[in-house]
């Protein structure tokens, strides 16, 4: 059996999670401090992929990155980057699609920390960055782990967007969820079963390990 869809999926999930961790942490921190109209709008946009059908995102990405017009054309001509039918396109789609799973848990964990924690650190002469790195992050470790695992797992499960903008190219965009769909269509139920079982086991182990690591205190991303 061709295992490339599994590797491709893991690679996509790993890259997406890493990127989201780098971007998501500061965004979550920023969102957790105070409220404003602008912040509410941004938070709404970040949260929307939770409820928006993946086909909506897929459709707009298809239009936005078509090399015939606008943004897609400019990207193609200037940087020779194509976001449709390419791996980087899937990374971009997953980035948008999985963002609420990274930002959500971190933000609510930061909000639940007592304000005195950071204030004490500032009083002792620590900078914002030192406070963030040495005080806040260690205190939200369980939520951070939940966010990372859920982002990874959610990217594994991505299907609708990839179906629309992926193009089912072996070793480039044929991720495991697409391979399952493809095998079912070809009535190759043995392969479909193999891919599905692997995905099932990976996700199961991941979720279980979060529970164990957090001593049954894992937080739902919606909390």
């Amino acid at each position: 059996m061709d295992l490339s869809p599994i590797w491709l999926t893991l690679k996509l999930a790993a890259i997406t999670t890493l990127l989201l961790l780098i971007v998501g942490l500061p965004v979550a921190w920023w969102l957790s401090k105070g409220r404003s109209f602008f912040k509410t709008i941004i938070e709404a946009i970040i949260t929307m992929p939770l409820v928006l059908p993946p086909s909506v995102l897929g459709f707009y990405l298809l239009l936005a990155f078509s090399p015939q017009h606008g943004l897609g054309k400019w990207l193609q001509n200037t940087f020779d980057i194509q976001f449709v039918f390419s791996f980087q396109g899937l990374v971009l789609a997953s980035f948008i699609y999985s963002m609420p799973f990274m930002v959500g848990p971190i933000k609510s964990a930061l909000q639940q920390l007592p304000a005195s924690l950071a204030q004490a650190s500032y009083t002792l002469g620590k900078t914002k960055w030192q406070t963030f790195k040495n005080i806040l992050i260690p205190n939200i470790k369980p939520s951070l782990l939940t966010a990372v695992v859920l982002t990874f797992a959610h990217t594994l499960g991505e299907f609708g967007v990839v179906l629309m903008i992926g193009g089912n190219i072996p070793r480039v965009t044929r991720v495991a969820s697409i391979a399952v769909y493809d095998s079912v269509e070809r009535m190759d139920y043995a392969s479909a079963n193999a891919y599905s079982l692997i995905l099932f086991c990976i996700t199961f182990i991941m979720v279980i390990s979060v529970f164990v690591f957090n001593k049954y205190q894992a937080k739902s991303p919606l909390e």
Partner: protein
Amino acid sequence: MIKLQNMKLNIFHIKRVGIVLFAGMLFSVPCYAQGLKVAAAANLQSIIEVLQKDFKQRTGIGIEPIVGSSGKLVAQIKNGAPFDVFLSADMSFPQELYKEGLSAKAPVVYAYGSLIICSSQNIGFQNWERILLTPRIKKIAIANPAVAPYGLAAEELLKKNGILENVKSKMVYGESISQINTYITTGVVEVGFTTQALVKDPANKTPLYWKVINPKTYAPIQQGMVILKHAENNPDAEKFYQYILSAPAKRIFEKYGYRIQ
């Protein structure tokens, strides 16, 4: 005593009405759309609506089309999908259903599909075999050859021309011919191989450039039809079957770029 019984009956009656109303609410959408369930290959996406209207006008019988790639529809039929008639994009899928006893009669050909090379840019398709190799063409879309007969025909065509291996890195696969049409009309691919029905479809608003592929250069796309087991005792299914093979339906097929002989 009699009164009491009546009351009981009444309560029972009210309950029943309630259940019926509730069920009615639940199923109101499917009930409204009830009709002959016709599983149609994706290349028939636009023409099936025209056939549906014409058939309704002639017989008063409504149909409910389910459109998808032939392979996907066959998988659904094998797993118990309640479809009455199957219009495939080839002969092998309906043949397979017939062999497995999911259809009482052997399939018949109702039309021959016509493969075109198509683009939203004016590329000039005189020497399309050569143009596909140039760097100007970055992506070529065909339907998944495993499930979509038009995709299979396109792949065979590229193989015969000896360029399949050279353009492999440019290939993009759609789950059905409909997705290829989306890829062509939105311009995400420079070139796609699709059905001629796309360019004959009045619903398409994108200006397209295309060339009919010489039918002698690929195995004919014989599109077959079967009545499925689900419709065994449904006279409407037989009527639709006869209609698809009738002269008025043939005229519609020809109008949409299909060949009859």
